[in-house]
C-alpha cells in the first residue's frame, strides 16, 4: 500500500515538473515583458510552441548522423530523470536514493555532453561556437557546483537531497557563513547553466553571441520541441533545487498525509512564482556580458564554493 502510494507520488512528481516546466518558462517571459512594459506572450505560449514544433516536419541537415537524431531523446531523458529526483513538494521520494546530488549534477552534465556533440555533428561553425563555449562554461560551473554540494553535504552530513532538505527544514541549521556563500554561488551557477542573462540570452538571434541557441541551431520540428522542453525542465530543476535547499519551508515530510502534501504543492508553486519573478527582475535589470567575461563570473562562483567548503573543513561552526 505504502509502496503504491510512493510510486504514485513519484509519478506525480515526474509529471508535475514535466507539466510545470513550460508554464514556468512562459511565466518568466511574461514577467520580463511586463517589466519592459510590453504585453508579452500568453502564459501558455510555450505549450503552443511545443505543439507547433511537434506538428512541423523535421528539416535535417544532409551531414547529420544518426546520433544527431538520437540526442534529443537522450538529453530529454537525462534532464527529466534529474528533475524528477529533486524534491519539490515532498521529500523522501521513492527513488530519491537512486541518485544523490552528485549524480543529479552528473546527469545534467551528460545531457550537456550529448548536446555539445549534437552541436558538432552537422559540421557548421555555429554549432562549433556553441559547443565550445558551452563546455568552457561547464568546465567552470561544474566544479563550482560540486564545491557547493560539498558545503551542503558537510553541513547536512549527506549528499542525499531528501536528507539535506529535511535537515535544512529542521531548526538546527541556523544561519551560517558557508550557507550564505553557497546560495550566492548556486544562484550564479543556475544563471550560467540555464543560459540566462548576463551569461547568455535565450531570446537572442545573432549567432555570434549565442551559446545554447547556436548549439541547437540545426534542430527543428519535434527534435527542437524536445530540446526546448528539456531546457525549461532544467530551469525549473534549478529553481526547485534552490527552493528545497535554501527555502525548504512547507515542503512535506516523507510520511506526510494529503493535507500536508497540499500545503507542499502550494508552497512549491509559491516558491516557483517568487523565483521566476526574481529571475525576470534580475534579467531585465542587467545587460549581457561578453563571452570571455563569463569565466570571471563563474570563477567567482567557484571561489565562493571553495571558500565555503574550506570554512566547513576548518570548523563545523561556520
Amino acid at each position, binding site marked *: 500500500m505504502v509502496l503504491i502510494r510512493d510510486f504514485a507520488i513519484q509519478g506525480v512528481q515526474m509529471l508535475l515538473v514535466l507539466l510545470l516546466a513550460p508554464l514556468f518558462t512562459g511565466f518568466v517571459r511574461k514577467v520580463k515583458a511586463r517589466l519592459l512594459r510590453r504585453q508579452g506572450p500568453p502564459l501558455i505560449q510555450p505549450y503552443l510552441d511545443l505543439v507547433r514544433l*511537434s*506538428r512541423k*516536419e*523535421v*528539416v*535535417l*541537415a*544532409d*551531414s*547529420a*548522423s*544518426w546520433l544527431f537524431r538520437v540526442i534529443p*531523446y537522450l538529453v*530529454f*531523458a*537525462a534532464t*527529466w*530523470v534529474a528533475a524528477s529526483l529533486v524534491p519539490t513538494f515532498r521529500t523522501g521520494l521513492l*527513488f530519491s*536514493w*537512486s*541518485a*544523490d546530488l*552528485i549524480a543529479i549534477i*552528473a546527469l545534467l*552534465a*551528460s545531457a*550537456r*555532453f550529448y548536446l*555539445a556533440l549534437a*552541436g*558538432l*555533428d552537422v*559540421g557548421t*561553425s555555429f*554549432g*562549433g*561556437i556553441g*559547443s*565550445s*563555449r558551452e*563546455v568552457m562554461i*561547464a*568546465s*567552470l560551473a*561544474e*566544479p563550482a557546483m*560540486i*564545491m557547493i554540494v560539498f558545503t551542503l*553535504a558537510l553541513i547536512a552530513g*549527506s*549528499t*542525499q537531497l531528501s536528507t539535506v532538505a529535511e535537515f535544512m527544514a529542521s531548526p538546527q541549521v541556523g544561519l551560517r557563513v558557508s550557507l550564505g556563500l553557497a546560495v550566492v554561488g548556486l544562484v550564479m551557477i543556475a544563471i550560467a547553466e540555464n543560459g540566462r542573462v548576463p551569461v547568455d540570452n535565450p531570446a537572442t538571434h545573432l549567432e555570434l553571441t549565442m551559446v545554447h541557441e547556436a548549439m541547437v*541551431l540545426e534542430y527543428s*520540428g*519535434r527534435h527542437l520541441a524536445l530540446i526546448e522542453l528539456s531546457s525549461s525542465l532544467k530551469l525549473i530543476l534549478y529553481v526547485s533545487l534552490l527552493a528545497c535547499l535554501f527555502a525548504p519551508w512547507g515542503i512535506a515530510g516523507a510520511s506526510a498525509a494529503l493535507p500536508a502534501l497540499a500545503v507542499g504543492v502550494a508552497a512549491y508553486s509559491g516558491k516557483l512564482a517568487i523565483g521566476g519573478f526574481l529571475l525576470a527582475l534580475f534579467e531585465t535589470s542587467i545587460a549581457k556580458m561578453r*563571452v570571455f567575461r563569463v*569565466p570571471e563570473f563563474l570563477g567567482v562562483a567557484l571561489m565562493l564554493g*571553495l571558500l565555503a567548503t574550506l570554512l566547513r*573543513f576548518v570548523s563545523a561552526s561556520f
Partner: protein
Amino acid sequence: MTLTVALACSAGLLALAAVAVAIGREAAATRFVYGASTAIAAISLVAAAAYLVAGEAPASLVLPLGIPWLGAHFRLDALSAFFLLVTDLGALSASLFALGYGAHEEAPERVLPFYPAFLAGMTLVVLADDAFTFLVSWEFMSLTSWALVMSHHRVAENVRAGFVYLVMASFGTLALMLAFGLLAGPDGLYAFEQMRAAHPSAMLGALALILALVGAGSKAGIVPLHVWLPLAHPAAPSHVSALMSGVMTKVAVYGFVRIALELAGPPAWWWSIVVLALAGITTVMGVLYALMQHDLKRLLAYHTVENIGIIFIGLGLALAFKAHGMLFAAALAFTAALLHVFNHSLFKSLLFFGAGAVLTATGERDMEHLGGLIHRMPQTAFAFLIGCAAISALPPLNGFVSEWLTFQAILLSPQLPSWGLKLLVPAVGALLALSAALAAACFVKAYGVTFLGRARTHVAQTAVETDRFSLAAMFLLAALCLLAGILPGLFIDALAPVSAALIGERMPAQIGAQWLSIVPIAASRSSYDGLLVFLFMIISGGLAASAIHRLASDRLRRAPAWDCGYPDASPATQYTAMSFAQPIRRVFGTVVFSARETGEMPPPGDTRPARLTVRLSDPVWDSLYAPLGAAIGFTADQLNRLQFLTIRQFLSLVFCALVALLLVLAVWS
C-alpha cells in the same frame, strides 16, 4: 592452484615469444601469436576471477631462479589477484583486437616476439613476491614495451620516444631498487615476507614511500615524471598503446600499493600529503595537456595521466585515513581507487582500440584531418562514444561510479584531525571536480572532431568500417563498461577481500542493498543506483519517443545545413580541435602553458587566407627536463676535453694522483 595456472600462463607466453622470434616473418604468424595469447589470457583471466570471487587464502611458491640463495618467490593474494584480473582482461581484449588489427602491421617480426613477452612481464610483476623477481619482471616489462615502441623505428620521433621512455623507465627501476635496498637492509632480506616482518622505522618507511612514489609514479605517469608517456604510448601499435595505457600504468599502481600500504609499514599521516598534492596536480595537468592536443592517441595518453591522478587521490586518502586509524573511510577510498583502476583499464583500452581502428581505416592520428567517421564506421563510432561517456564520468557508465566513490571518500575527510590535510583535501576535491568537467569537454572535442561533422580529408571520406575482431574487442569492453556502471555493487564486493587484506577493513556488502544500489556508508547519507538510473533514462526516453511518434508528425526532409547564405561552405569551415579548445585555452592555457595566439589578417582585397598560430610551451619539460639535458650535455662537453690531452698531460694526471694519495698517507696518522 591459481598461482600455478598464472605462472604456467606466463611461461606459456614466454615460450610463445620464443616461437614468435622463429616464425615472426611467416604470414600466419600474426594470427597464431595473437590467437594463442588470447587463449592464454582467457585461461588466466578465468583463474584470477575464480580466485577473487571464491576469496581463497594466499598461495605462494618458490622457484630456484633469480638470486641463487633466495630463489624466485611468487605469491598470489587478493591484491595481486585483482591486478592479475585487470592485466588479463586487458591482455585478452588487446589480443582479440590485434587478431584483426595486427594484419595491417608492416613489420610484424618487430612486434610479435615482444608482445607475448610484454604480457608475461606484466603478469610476473603482479605475482612476484621478492624484490629481485619484482624488479626483473618490472624492468622486463619496460624493456619489452620499449621494443614495441621502437617497432615503427623509421619515424624519427618514435626513436626519440623510445629513448625518453627507456631512460625514464630505468630511472624508475633504480628508484625502486633503492627503495627495496632500504627495506631489505644491509644484509639483503629481499623476500617480501621478510620485509613484512621487518617493521621499518617511520623515517625509513617514509623514505621508502617517497622512492616508491618516484619509481612507480614515473611508470604510472605522475606529473612531473609523465613526460615519456605521451611520447611512447602513441608511438606503439594501438593494441600495445592500449596495454601500456590501460594495463601497464595499473601495474605501476600495483607496485605503489604493494610498497606503500604493505611493505613500508604503518603510514604516517604526512605521507599522504605528498601523494595527494602530486595526485591533484597530476589530475588537472593531465587533462589540460590533453585538451591542447590534436593527435588522437596523444590525447588519450594524456588522459591516462589524468586518471592516474584520480587513482592516486584515492590512494592518498586511503593512506591518510589509515594513518589516523579511520579504517572504514580508508577502505572506502582504497576501494574507490581500485575500482577506478579497473574502470580506467576498461575504457582506456576501448578508446585506444577505437583510435587504432581509425588509424587503420584512415592512416591518420591527427584529428584535424578526420571528421564524419560516424557515417563511414558507425559501429566503431558507437563503441567509441560509450568509451567517451564512460571516461567523462557520465552516469550510468562505470567511470562515474568510481569518481562518485572518491567524492564520498573526500566528504569523509573533515574528520581528519591534521590541519595540513584539512586544507589540502578540499583543494584536491576541487581539482578533481575541475578535471572531471574538463575531461568531458575534452572528449566532446575528441569525439566531435574525429567522428562527427563532415570529413575534412579524402582518407576520412573513404574510410571503411574495421574488421570483426577489432569490433568484437571494442564491444566486449563497451559492454563491460555498462555492466560495471549499472551493477557496481558486484565489483565493490569483489574488491572487499583486497581492502580487508591491506587496510584491515572492508566496505559494507553491497549486494544486499535494495534495488542493487551502492551504499558506501549509510542509505540516509549517500547512495547511488546505476541500474535504476539506467532504467529511468530508458523508460523516460522511451516514453518521450513513443509519445512523439504517436502524437507528433514523423515527416522528415533532408536539406543542406544553414549556411547564412554562403552556399557550399567547405569542410574546412568546421570547428577544428584547436578552435574548439580555444575558449578553454584562453581560460586555462594562458596561465599553464603560457599559450600565445598570433593572428595575421591580410588587408581587404588581399586573397591570402588569414592565419591564426597558437604557441604553447610545456612547463614541465621546459623547467625540468630541458635544463637537465643541457646540464648533462655541458658536462659531457667539458669532460670530453680529456680525450684530447697529450701523453705528457695524461702522465701528469697519473703523477698528480700518485702525489695526492701519498699526501693522504702522510696526513693519515
